[in-house]
């Protein structure tokens, strides 16, 4: 048997959430920084493939390598801690407070952002020969993405903002399914397969992932995207992060917790009426 019973991995999720809340500041920041950076590199990789082949499918198929790498190395993404940490709070683990959860989210956000920004700066330097050329087709592609997914939402006002929010929800439904899937399997191969499927789905459908966007939009601005930092933060990062939180928690964390940790009693089975056995009389 190379996978866990649901009740086993469900408590493992709560344990993992608890452990993250008790993690030291240094470890939280370092792990978040590395996660942000690796995911950003994977995004560059996927965009390069898409511009070279012109086929988004191939980029999406290969994008999950980044996620697998960072998960196997034990780094933390904001989307993951959104799902896991509140479970420890719900399970009333001693010492776990709302403040502790928010502290963890804040630190992971900062770490992810710093990691993603580092890659954005390094890669923009590489693509533009130290900011001397225009960056070629990739720059154009990224700038286009950035404008479409900020000003594009802004053009529809509140409806656009909520579109981004819902795309964020759908994204973390998928991504956190990957995180949980990886916990179910006990082998590296199984973990990779379990993570690969949902990540592929979310990337191909261009759902909004708060950490990927922490790279994509700063990179887009550097590469000449025509939108402001304020546009990015308000029209994209904010609804995405909130959507990620709601989607991951509602669709994955809470559902699994509610059914596998706080399992309810089975409904009473219908009592079958005893078959009246009349003594066989001659």
């Amino acid at each position, binding site marked *: 048997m190379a996978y866990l019973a649901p*009740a086993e991995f469900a408590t493992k999720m709560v*344990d993992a959430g608890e452990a993250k809340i008790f993690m*030291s500041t240094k470890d939280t920041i370092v792990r978040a920084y590395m996660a942000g950076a690796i995911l950003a590199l994977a995004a560059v990789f996927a965009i390069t493939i898409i511009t070279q082949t012109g086929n988004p499918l191939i980029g999406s198929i290969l994008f999950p390598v980044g996620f697998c790498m960072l998960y196997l190395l034990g780094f933390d993404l904001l989307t993951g801690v959104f799902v896991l940490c509140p479970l420890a709070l719900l399970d009333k683990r001693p010492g776990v407070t709302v403040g502790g959860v928010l502290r963890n989210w804040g630190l992971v956000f900062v770490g992810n952002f710093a990691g993603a920004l580092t890659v954005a700066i390094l890669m923009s330097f590489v693509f533009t020969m130290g900011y001397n050329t225009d960056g070629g087709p990739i720059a154009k592609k990224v700038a286009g993405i950035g404008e479409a997914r900020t000003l594009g939402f802004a053009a529809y006002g509140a409806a656009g903002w909520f579109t981004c929010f819902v795309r964020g929800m759908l994204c973390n439904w998928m991504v956190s399914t990957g995180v949980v899937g990886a916990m179910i399997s006990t082998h590296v191969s199984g973990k990779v397969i379990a993570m690969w499927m949902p990540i592929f789905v979310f990337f191909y459908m261009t759902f909004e992932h708060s950490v990927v966007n922490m790279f994509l939009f700063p990179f887009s601005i550097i590469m000449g995207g025509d939108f402001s930092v304020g546009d990015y933060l308000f029209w994209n990062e904010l609804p995405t992060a909130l959507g990620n939180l709601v989607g991951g928690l509602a669709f994955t964390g809470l559902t699994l917790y509610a059914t596998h940790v706080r399992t309810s009693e089975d409904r009473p089975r219908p009592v079958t009426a005893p078959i009246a056995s009349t003594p066989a009389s001659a």
Partner: protein
Amino acid sequence: MTAPSALRVGLGQYSSAGRKDTNQDFHGALLAEGSVNETKGIAIALADGISSSAVSRDAAEAAVTGFLNDYYSTPEAWSTKHSAMRVLEATNAWLHRQTQRTALRFDRNKGYVCTFSAVVLKSTTAHLFHVGDSRIYRLEDRTLEQLTSDHRYRVSDEESFLSRALGIESYVDIEYSELVLEVGATLLLTTDGVHEFLDERSMAEILTQPAPSLDATANRLVTAALEAGSYDNLTAQVVRIEALPERSATETYRQLNELPFPPALRPGEHFDGFKICRVLTVSARSSVFLAIDEASQQRVVLKVPSVDLRDDVAHLERFLLEEWIASRVDNPHVITAVRRTQPKRHIYQVTEYVDGATLTQWMRDNARPTLDQVRSIVKQIARALRALHRLEMLHQDLRPDNVLIDRHGTITVIDLGSAYVPGLEELGTRAQAQHMPGTPQYLAPEYFVGGHRSTRSDQFSLGVIAYQLLCGQLPYGADVARATSPAAQKRLRYRPLRGRNSELPPWIDLALEKATRIDPMHRYDEISEFVHDLETPSSRFLRQDQPPLIERNPVAFWQGLSATLALVILALLILRD
């Protein structure tokens, strides 16, 4: 009843103080029958306390009885060699600690030191364990062959020292060898009082002479050595193999050595002589079931390793060790392992069932317990901890989930899976390299900075539990686990109970603060002192209502001191002319 094909031996033993006043030799044997004969075999052991020490008789007795008891409670899944080595390492560490804690440690010739030789006969093999200068021989064709080497360092013809023995150092190098048995084979164990004064030929002669019993043969060996002028204690044990099991039995045993994992267990199923009643808990580490032992109709608890950790060798080793530890500790407040005559066919643990709730649940049900309730709980946990500490073990994972409380308020400490057993460090370090032993909320700060663990580490956990019982919160919140450097630990501040539960007398707070100090050296020397201080206000606390400034605020203290010195310098400068 032993089957006709079981291993059967004849045993003769004799021990005498000889020309000395006391007999510092100790010997014993356990002729197991039935399934234990098959899984664990027959053990014969002998120890010789060093003559320069007054307590060595105790050491010899502890070594032999400890070996015979502990060896038979090792997990079935362990090999003979592994089991006996673990038991001897633990015995050695215990003896060494006994010496270290008394004044005997200042004299290398005094202390809890003894030689040790044992034979474990299992199936068709003899396993020999030996340290020191007692000997194990085999009789073959009327000649004796010495199977062990003398761990003796000879300075001159007159002077020699034991180079290896139990209890000298915290680690011991045990000589091990195996021997294939045949029916009629004879083994002889002797202490130096016998073999120093009789040559091998005369011993072989005595062994081959017809005698009414093997005891008589052992007696003759001792008498002959006495006549030859022996001035030491004399002990001889003669073992003769009378019947050996068939090969098939050996094979069943080999299968036992590679026990499979249990299948997924469901309520109502029958498993290895148990009827599964219901699931108690499922966690990422193990699944725990309530079951009924069908032979005794007794309610027991079965613990099965989780699927996640079945590939983790270190974790499995600890899992098997846990049951062994539970069977070593004999205390009403510590969970006991259930021993059954029927051998296990899968990897799992059986412990007694405690009809009660965890302390976590109890705290939910009793949000505001009385001080007396808390005292009673703390006192009982302290007793459980003392039972472990007396065996030099540390619990290391004391938390409300691992403390059961029944209707009458009786406490049972469970889950010895993280316990630290001296002598078995190499097991522990591998399992603990990746994980902290316990749970971050209750684990003492020294674990987070790689500090020295001691009984004070368990005291910290107990202090945290007591604090939580009284106010539902933790004395340092979640901060202990986050402080992973000594500098960060210095910044941790105890949150006084007074602000959280104003009904309590202030001296309770002082006792809790002392038990949960970050620096283990500032905690109580003994857990019993903590328990005592929870009951009566310590005069120390009454006198010292406020700690000195240097403890409360070292920065302010040094700032103040520096300011004073600056003023003095200024004054001196002004007064100079």
